[in-house]
């Protein structure tokens, strides 16, 4: 099962990336997913990440079939 990757808000716009599907091989952490999806870009300082809809960190583990989200600080409410 591939890893599904989603970008939101300003990050989606600045990277021109929205939805990706990446082969799970060699993707062990959220950081691996970020680097693969962005061709090795430096992650922004205020980057937020989620794995399967739960807030996560760059060193969180990723498994086959996971959904990984990347987004800037949230501003709802």
């Amino acid at each position: 099962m591939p890893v599904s990757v989603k970008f939101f808000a300003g990050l989606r716009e600045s990277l021109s990336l929205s939805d990706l599907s990446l082969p799970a091989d060699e993707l062990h952490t959220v950081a691996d997913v970020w680097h693969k999806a962005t061709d090795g870009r430096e992650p922004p300082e205020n980057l937020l990440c989620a794995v399967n809809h739960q807030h996560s960190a760059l060193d969180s583990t990723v498994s086959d079939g996971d959904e990984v989200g990347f987004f800037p600080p949230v501003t709802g409410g």
Partner: protein
Amino acid sequence: MTVALKTAPYDAWDELKAYEQQRLTAGRYGACCAFTGTMRDFNEGDEVKAMSLEHYPGMTECQLEAIADEASARWPLLDTLILHRVGDIQPGETIVLTACWSAHRAASFEACRFLMEALKSRAPFWKKETLQDDSTRWVESNTPG
């Protein structure tokens, strides 16, 4: 406990009235604290013409439900309601409504405040403002609670 995303304008007080009539039993609760967040027509010194609220479908509902569950675990609540707009919003429209019902006032006040602070820091919503000259900008950070 109810969490819902709204894609069209809603009247917060009508929603509260209907929810209370349908879901609460009159005489059982003694306190309700409700909060509404409304779109202003100015922000950071600029006039704002419109707003678009992006969110992370799936994660949004999951986070809002977790926040409501956490409130119920921390305070003796009889019920909790969270409504949040997504999509295009006009100034004056309600963005968010949170409400907590309890026997006594302390729980409803504290839990309602908690819902808003947790929502503002954890729920994946992002505001994009359209200014008078039709330029757009992402809101970078929330007002501290």
